[in-house]
């Protein structure tokens, strides 16, 4: 483990690209089919769908292994996105939230947790 939490060459070695990490993943990650498939999966997630992983991978048997690893991370990052599907749709249709407009806020004056009010 890296005690500093920073990127390190050692971690990079551990995290070799799927394409070179083992015999089962012999295709390069920049194979257009991998890119296209990952893009397609992302589009489904962003449309609010939850694709069936096994069915999806079954469509791409030749690239299933590297694709599966990309999808793990893709789901992880998508889940962390501050703009889930329904909000992305509204942005595309010109209803992008005003900067700083984050929905209804509680009464600020009555609940302010300032420098001296940080106790949990």
């Amino acid at each position, binding site marked *: 483990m890296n005690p500093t*939490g920073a990127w390190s060459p050692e971690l990079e070695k551990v995290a070799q690209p799927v394409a070179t990490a083992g015999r089962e993943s012999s295709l390069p990650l920049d194979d257009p089919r991998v890119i296209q498939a990952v893009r397609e999966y992302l589009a489904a997630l962003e449309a609010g769908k939850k694709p069936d992983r096994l069915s999806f991978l079954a469509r791409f048997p030749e690239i299933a292994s590297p694709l599966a690893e990309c999808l793990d991370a893709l789901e992880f990052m998508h889940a962390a996105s501050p*703009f889930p599907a329904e909000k992305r749709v509204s942005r595309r249709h010109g209803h992008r939230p005003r900067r700083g407009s984050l929905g209804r806020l509680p009464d600020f004056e009555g609940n302010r947790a300032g420098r001296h009010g940080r106790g949990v």
Partner: protein
Amino acid sequence: MNRVAQSDLKGLIDQARGGDASVLGKLLEGYRNYLTLLARLSLQKRLQGKLDESDLVQEAFLEAYRDFCQFRGTTEKELTSWLRKILAHNLANVVRHYCGTRGRDVRLERELEVELERSSQIADPGLVAAQSSPSREAAHREQMVLVADALSHLREDYREVLILRHLESLSFPEVAKRMGRTLSSVDKLWVRALARLRRVLGVVS
């Protein structure tokens, strides 16, 4: 992993409350990546990245260190919430400094707290819980803490493409423009970054 196990957290908090400065330092340091990521997202949104988030985070850490006696929680959720409040306070000061009229709005600090909290929340916990093994692990922790730690282990261009596409929610053409790359190059970089992240998650988790 640079963070303490959840099961050890309460013990560390108790030790830190008891005045063990080195434990407090270790405890807070485990959330540096998290606060840095939240600060970056907020600064990018409000100030278009005119300010370095690391200075803000360092200031937040100093205040957390100084005011730790005010923290009364025992869980990671409570600790991250407390740290976000400190960060929101400092962010509000910076935004007020840079943004004139809008910055004088008294709701700003609370608004930033809400914004940081939202950035911390997973958009789709069901998806995380149902699928990949690192994601299942993540479901039991503060998701954005884990995301921030994992991203910190990636090289800069990988980290950047994932943050821009997934956390700043830019389109691929926007990402390409921001990074000064072609769309095709961004596609390849993105997929490689995802594959690398998957490996890092296996290590970090």
